[in-house]
C-alpha cells in the first residue's frame, strides 16, 4: 500500500516537471539544455543553408523580471526568423539558445558559462545590470562578442573586457534626462529611493550627483530591501523630510507597491520612476495611485515610427505588447548580423572589431554608433507620464 502511494507521488511529481517544461516558449531551453537544440537542428536540415550560426540569448525568463526577459527573447526570435527568411547570415542559418539570467548574479554566471560552453558565436542579452556584470569576464575570457540591449549601469563600462557593446543609454544619459525633468517640474528638494542592486543604486547615485552639482538638494537617499512588501516605514521617513519629488530608480514590481504606499501614506509630491519601472504592470499594481507618475524611459516601440511593422508582427505572433526593451533586443540581433556580414567570417575577433566600427546603423530605436568605451554614442531616453492607465508622451 505504502509503495503504491509513493509511486503515485513520484509519477505526480514527474508529470508536474513535464508540464513545467511544456510551458516554455519553443525557442528557449533555459532549463532543459540540449533538447531544443536537437529539435532545431532537425528542422534546420530541411532548408538549404550553409551550416548554422549559433547565437546565445541571455535574459531573465524566470523571477521578478521574467516579463521583460520574455519580451526580449520574443523580439530576438522575430529578428532571427526575418534574417533566416532572407537567407541567414553569411548563408548560415541562425539558431538561438537561451540562458536564464533570472536577474540574479549566480544564475546569470551559470547561464553565461552554459552559453559559452555550448559554443555560441555571439550573445545578445543582459537585462539586469547586477546580473550582467559578473558575466562580462566569462564572455571576455572566451572572447565571445556580447551585445547588451538593456542593462545600462555605468559599472559595466570599466569592467568591459572589450567584447561587450551596450546599445541602451547608460545611467548617465538617464540621470541627465531625469534631472532636466525635475527642474521642469519645479522641484527643489528631492528624495531618491533605490533597491541596492547594481542598476538602481548606480542610477540613484549618478542622479544624486548631477542634482547636487546643479545646486539643488537631495533630502533623502533611501534603499528598500528586495523581496520586501512593506515600505510604510520608509514612506514615513520620506514624508518627514517633505521632498517636492521622489525618484524611484528600481523595477516596476516593487515600484508599483511603493507608489501605492506613498499615496496611501499621504505623500503628495511628484513621483518619477526610472526605466526599470516602465511597464503597464506598474499601473496595474499601483492602481489609481500611479496617475500622473513620470517615467524616464528608453524609447517605447509605440513611439517609434520605424517600429510599426515590428509591433504588428510581434502582436500577431505573441498576442502581447512588445514591452520596453524589445526594440533594442531586435536591433541587437540586427547589429550583430550586420557586424558578422561586414567581418565576412564567424571569427570572434573579427566580429568584435566590426561591432566597434559600426557607424550610424539604423535600428528601430535610432542610430547605433559606439564611443571608445563601446557605449551607445547618442542617448535615446524619453519622458512619459501615466494617464488613465497608460503611458503617454510627456516630452
Amino acid at each position: 500500500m505504502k509503495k503504491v502511494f509513493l509511486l503515485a507521488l513520484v509519477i505526480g511529481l514527474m508529470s508536474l516537471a513535464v508540464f513545467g517544461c511544456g510551458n516554455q516558449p519553443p525557442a528557449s531551453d533555459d532549463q532543459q539544455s540540449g533538447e531544443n537544440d536537437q529539435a532545431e537542428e532537425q528542422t534546420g536540415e530541411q532548408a538549404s543553408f550553409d551550416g548554422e550560426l549559433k547565437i546565445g540569448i541571455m535574459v531573465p525568463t524566470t523571477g521578478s523580471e521574467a516579463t521583460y526577459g520574455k519580451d526580449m527573447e520574443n523580439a530576438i526570435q522575430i529578428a532571427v526568423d526575418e534574417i533566416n527568411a532572407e537567407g541567414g547570415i553569411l548563408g548560415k542559418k541562425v539558431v538561438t539558445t537561451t540562458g536564464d539570467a533570472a536577474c540574479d548574479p549566480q544564475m546569470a554566471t551559470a547561464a553565461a558559462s552554459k552559453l559559452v560552453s555550448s559554443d555560441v558565436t555571439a550573445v545578445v542579452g543582459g537585462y539586469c545590470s547586477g546580473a550582467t556584470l559578473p558575466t562580462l569576464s566569462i564572455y571576455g575570457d572566451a572572447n565571445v562578442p556580447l551585445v547588451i540591449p538593456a542593462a545600462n549601469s555605468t559599472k559595466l563600462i570599466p569592467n568591459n573586457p572589450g567584447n561587450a557593446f551596450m546599445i541602451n543609454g547608460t545611467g548617465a544619459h538617464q540621470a541627465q534626462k531625469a534631472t532636466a525633468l525635475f527642474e521642469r517640474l519645479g522641484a527643489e528638494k528631492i528624495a531618491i529611493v533605490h533597491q541596492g542592486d547594481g542598476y538602481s543604486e548606480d542610477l540613484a547615485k549618478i542622479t544624486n550627483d548631477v542634482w547636487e552639482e546643479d545646486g539643488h538638494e537631495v533630502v533623502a537617499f533611501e534603499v528598500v530591501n528586495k523581496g520586501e512588501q512593506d515600505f510604510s516605514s520608509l514612506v514615513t521617513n520620506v514624508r518627514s523630510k517633505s521632498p517636492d519629488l521622489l525618484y524611484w530608480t528600481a523595477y516596476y514590481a516593487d515600484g508599483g507597491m511603493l507608489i501605492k504606499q506613498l499615496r496611501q501614506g499621504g505623500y503628495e509630491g511628484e513621483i518619477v520612476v526610472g526605466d526599470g519601472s516602465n511597464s503597464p504592470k506598474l499601473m496595474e499594481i499601483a492602481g489609481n495611485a500611479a496617475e500622473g507618475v513620470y517615467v524616464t524611459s528608453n524609447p517605447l516601440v509605440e513611439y517609434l515610427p520605424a517600429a510599426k511593422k515590428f509591433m504588428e508582427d510581434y502582436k500577431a505572433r505573441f498576442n502581447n505588447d512588445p514591452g520596453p526593451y524589445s526594440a533594442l533586443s531586435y536591433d541587437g540581433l540586427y547589429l550583430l548580423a550586420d557586424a558578422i556580414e561586414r567581418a565576412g567570417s564567424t571569427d570572434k575577433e573579427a566580429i568584435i572589431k566590426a561591432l566597434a566600427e559600426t557607424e550610424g546603423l539604423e535600428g528601430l530605436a535610432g542610430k547605433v554608433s559606439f564611443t571608445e568605451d563601446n557605449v551607445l554614442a547618442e542617448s535615446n531616453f524619453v519622458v512619459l507620464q501615466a494617464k488613465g492607465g497608460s503611458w503617454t508622451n510627456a516630452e
Partner: protein
Amino acid sequence: MSTFDIILQQLINGLLIGSFYSLVALGYSMVYGIIMLLNFAHGDIYMAGAFVAFVMLAVVSPVLGAGWLGIVAAMIASMFLVGLLGVFIQRVAYRPMLGAPRLSILITAIGVSLVLYNSVMAITDGEFQAFTTDLGFAGVDVGSVHITYTQIILVVATAILMISLNWFISKTMYGKAMRAIALDKDACRLMGINVNKIIALTFFVGSSLAAAAGTMAGVYYGSIHFFMGFVIGLKAFTAAVIGGIGSIPGAMIGGLVLGLLEAAGTQLPFIGSEWKDVFAFGLLILLLVFRPTGILGKTEIERM
C-alpha cells in the same frame, strides 16, 4: 511632520506589518508545538493563500464586487481551501515521516516549500500578478498622520482571528486535545484521542491563518508573486522564536515586537533605512542571548 507624528506613524506601520508576521508565526508555532517540526513550507502556504484568494476574488467579484464583501468571501474561501492544502501536505509529506529522525522531516519541509513555489512559478510564468480591489485610500487623519480604513480593518481582522484562535485552543475539546498532544503523544493515544486527526486539524488551522495573512497582504500591497512567502516566512519564523516557539501568545507577541523594531529601525539617525533589518535582528540576537527560550517560551531540554 512633527516628531510625535512620526512616532505615531511608525507605531501604526509596525503594528500593521507585525500583525502579518504574527498570523504567519502562529502556524510555525502551532506545528512546532505539536510535532516539533519547523515547517519551512509555511511561508509558501502564505503565498498559496494569496494566490487562491486572488483566483477566488476573480470568481466572486462579478456577483459581490471587489470591495470588502468580495474580499471577505474570497478570504474565507482561501482560508478553507488552503487549510485543506495544509492537511494534504501533512498527510502526504509529513505523516509518513513522523517516525523518522527530525532532520529528515525538516528536509521534507524544505522540499515541500520548493514544490509549492515552483508550481506557482510554473502556473504564473514567474510573473507578478496585480491584486486589484476597489478599496481606496480614504481614512482618518490624526495630525499629519493618515490612517486608511483598510489599515484599521486589517489590524482589527487580525485581532479577531487571534482572539478566536485563543478561544479555540483554550476552551474547546479540540484545543484541549492539541495541548495534550504537545505534552505527550503516546499518553493521548492511550486516552483515546485520535492523534493523527488532531495533527491534521492543527495544520488546517495554521494554514488557514497563513492564508488569511496572505489574502490581507495581497489586498493591502496590491501585488502577489510566487516568491512573496520567502522573506515573510523567515521573519515569521524569527517572530515565533522570539516569542518562544510552541507558544501561541508568544507568536502573537513576537510578530508585533519584530514589526515594531523594524519600524523603529528606519528612524535611526545617521544610517539609512537599509540597516533596519540589521538593527532589528541584532536586538533579537541579543534577546536570545539573555533569554534563549524566547519571551514566553518554557525551558526545555533536547529541542532543535
